[in-house]
């Protein structure tokens, strides 16, 4: 075999040429029978160029991807969601206590702290340690990808939900050891930053049941002070590079469908029938949240190898 199968073949393409959203839309339309309403025009799907305001009429769900170390699966999904043709506002977290990366043996992992270690510093450290090993097991390519996505791994439990993510990162604002090389680390340099300024997301996607449990438990413990609903999904992905790639694709597909459903629900409302608070017939026009289980079930049929879970939680 010419190359290690676990090895990440190449940096992912910046924008997958296939527009999965179109496929997703067609299924939705055919199933709902609401083909008269075009989901979104192509013009609306254009990703906003840097420094330009996003189209105010286009609606985008805000996503959050979560895995154990905020390195492999969540970052792959983060990249996919933010580099798709219809780029989504995305942030990502890890639920573990520490960032653990494979070391020379299973009992010698490379351990880093969340929130104040940058991907760049991990990369340079491992590069100095054993370039051959870490390139062969795909760690260096992974970190290379990650450092282009955002500054460093963040821990879910330390996330201050609702605190605006603007300006410099907290770790660097504190003036800790990272201040020298992290002084320029601003939230807006993260991929998928636009739309996440308020520090709130609509959808959380975890990549492992353990993480889903951790997220739910954390949200329950926080006492939901924000009164804001959030859909927490789990998509079970094995923690390796190949599965992460597949999982990233699946997550993007799920995101596209969810976003299509949300956009559709919003347009139906804004477009014509004032089906509002007082509408007697609730089932006539379902809002986005009710459509979620259907969307997920359809998605699950196509991705049976990635068992899904879902819960409506509160921030």
């Amino acid at each position, binding site marked *: 075999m010419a190359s290690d199968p676990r090895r990440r073949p190449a940096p992912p393409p910046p924008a997958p040429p296939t527009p999965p959203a179109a496929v997703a839309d067609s299924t939705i339309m055919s199933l709902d029978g609401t083909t008269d309403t075009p989901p979104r025009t192509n013009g609306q799907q254009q990703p906003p160029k840097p420094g330009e305001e996003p189209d*105010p009429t286009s609606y985008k769900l805000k996503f959050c991807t979560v895995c154990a170390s905020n390195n492999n699966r969540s970052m792959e999904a983060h990249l996919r969601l933010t580099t798709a043709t219809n780029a989504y506002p995305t942030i990502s977290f890890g639920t573990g206590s520490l960032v653990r990366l494979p070391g020379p043996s299973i009992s010698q992992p490379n351990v880093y702290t969340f929130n104040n270690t940058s991907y760049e510093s991990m990369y340079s450290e491992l590069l100095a340690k054993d370039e051959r090993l870490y390139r062969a097991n795909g760690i260096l390519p992974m970190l290379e990808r990650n450092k282009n996505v955002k500054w460093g791994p963040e821990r879910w439990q330390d996330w201050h939900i609702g605190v605006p993510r603007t300006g410099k990162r907290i770790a660097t604002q504190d003036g800790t050891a990272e201040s020298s090389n992290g002084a320029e680390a601003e939230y807006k340099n993260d991929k998928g930053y636009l739309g996440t300024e308020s520090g709130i997301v609509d959808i959380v996607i975890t990549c492992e049941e353990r993480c889903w449990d951790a997220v739910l438990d954390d949200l*329950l413990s926080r006492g*939901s*002070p924000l009164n804001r609903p959030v859909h927490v999904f789990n998509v079970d992905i094995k923690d390796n590079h190949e599965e992460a790639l597949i999982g990233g694709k699946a997550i993007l597909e799920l995101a596209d469908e969810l976003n299509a459903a949300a956009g559709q629900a919003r347009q139906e409302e804004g477009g014509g029938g004032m089906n*509002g608070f007082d509408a007697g017939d*609730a089932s006539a026009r379902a809002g986005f949240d009710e459509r979620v289980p259907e969307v997920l*079930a359809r998605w699950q049929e196509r991705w049976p190898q990635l068992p899904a879970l879902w819960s409506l939680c509160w*921030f």
Partner: protein
Amino acid sequence: MSDLRDTIKQLNSARELALKDPALYPQIVSGVQAVIGPERPVELRRWGADFLAESFASPVVSAEEKQRMCLGMLDLLKSYLNRKEERGEEEDWNVVKSAVQCAASVYPLVFRHTISNADDKETWAKMASMKSSILRRMDTAPGSMRICCIKFVARVVQVQTPGLIADPRRPEQNETSLALVPRDHAIIPPSNLEAEASGLLDRLLGVLQDNIPDALIITATLNALSPLVAKRASISPKILSTVLSYNPLTLANAKMEGKDKIAIKSMTRTTMSFLNNVLKRTQHPALGPRIHQQVERLRHSLTEVFSDQNPLKRPAPDEPTDGLSDDKRQKLDRDAEAGTTPLQQQYPPLPPGPVSLAQLFTLTNDRAAAGFHVEAIPQHFVAQLVPPLLASIDPTQLDAAINVVRARYLEIQRQPPPTVVQTSGEEEDDDYDPMTGFGDAEQAANQIDQLPPLQGQPELAIASFHLPPPPPLTEHERAEYSETAKERLFGALQRLDDEARRQGKKQGVEREKGFNRLAATGGEDRDGWIALLTRLVTRPTFDVNQENDNIKQEGDERSLTKKGQGTIDLPKILREAFHRYIMDDWRRRIDVAIAWLNEEWYADRLLSKQREDEELSLPNYTHLTLSLLDSLIPYLDISDTRHLIRFLSEIPHLPTEIFSRIEKLALDPERVQLCTQTLLYLIMLRPPVREGAVDCAERIWRGNADARASVGGKILSKWRPDVLVEAEEGKLLGEGVKEEG
């Protein structure tokens, strides 16, 4: 439209300012109030409702700030919620949804404001109006909105239920709850509010009690109830007992589709998370074990239901209803074929031609039954089986069977008896079946025994068969084959030599050596092969067809040269090959030479005995020994004493001709010592040849002046001193002659 976009753009930049600097929130919230009012387009109202919800939820704005801000916003919120009453048109539900979220955030703020401002009826009235509007529509609202209503209700319950007062002296630090409300509050009488909260809680729990299959509502409710359990001790047992008795898996059934499966799984997992969270955070001495138990039960049921994708119940076995499954049909067919069903009791006719006893008594077509050998059953079982079997057989059936056999037998008797050849021919006929033919040969023999004696049959005699003699070998062919045989024999020896050399001295197995070893074991090692070869070489002289007198006549050259078979003599070829083999490396192969010559001697002896010679003649032996010695002598070195002594001492017989060779050897002054030592050895340790050896020494002494000193000193001085004396005299005489001359 572009106007609208610009406005939203401006609003967004205002929001960004607020996000970057939370201190700007009050200013911006009041600033945008006019832009997002009820008369503005739906896009702006949406933006406004979202922004308000976000602002009042923001953790970076202090509660006091929000409390001040919210008072000015209540009218706006109310206009969103009550649009139909106020304006006669329905509000966009996105706006309402955000407004309800905002209301949930604002409610504690207004409540707190009202506690401290007991005279501000108006503010509380606005909030109460919103509350009743939300509660009124909660149950009929679409799911998206209903979950927000649920959350609002949960928040109301939380506020209107007494909570812990951490520090009574600093009420602003305490969490907003009914506990802060004075008992005699004019606007919000605590008892009324608590009753209302209790009713609202029942409404929330009703969702779980009704076990509705809507995962959205269920998970939203469970997640909204969690803070109540954690922070409101007075109502947590009620909530917990409801959740404990809630089991979403009762909705599971065999016909679940993908959506239901995910929904049920998600509801169950959310319930488990809820309970685990309670277990982790709070100590419920009474409920703790129950919670733990319920979590475990849910986990088990979940794996049971979803473990193998199987429906809950095993499907009924796939059985045909008409009783005509393939198995049964086959059985019927078999019965019909075997003719064992009473209705079609037809015995098969005997096969044409001679039959065995077994065939005679076989009344079934079932080959398996016919081929069964009854001896396979132990005798005592048969003894036990036969009486009840006989008793149970239908007599008419038995009679019929006996008659059939009898008729068959009579029929056979009428036919001419078959011949042996025919019988054996039939045995191997086309229809041969190993199952039915079991024991047929014996039965055929029995049958033949019972047949009348053969009469008038042509005698069967097997003529003896002779292979045509092979064409006689030509001289050339014979030579060729002899050569091939020799090469193969010695090729093997060469190979074994190489092997032995490779293995060196580490030949672990100690074998019987020399004469006693069996030549038949040869081939595995060098010694064995040599034993085999030596015997092959020496023994062909015993030709079985050879007459004794022939041997006599032929003498030395007797073996295969007789009968005019030409000049090809395999033993001769082999002997030459042996000779060459030894001479190739004679120092190392001296043992082979000795073994070979021993065999030759033995063979000659046997032959001599066979011919009853008067005296022992060793034609082959003598010839070969001398020729080998002749070949050796040129190579003998002064250091080869050891080899020569060994050779001469170990060969079984020393012909007298040997000494003439030694004499010649002594002519070489360098090898005189060698000869002397050899002779001395023979004289001392081989008495039968002592005489010859001493004679030889004497001849040397006499004939060879160079060797005189050595031979005379070592041998003659001891074994024949008289020669020396004689010589001394002669010498003196000679000297005297010299002197005289």
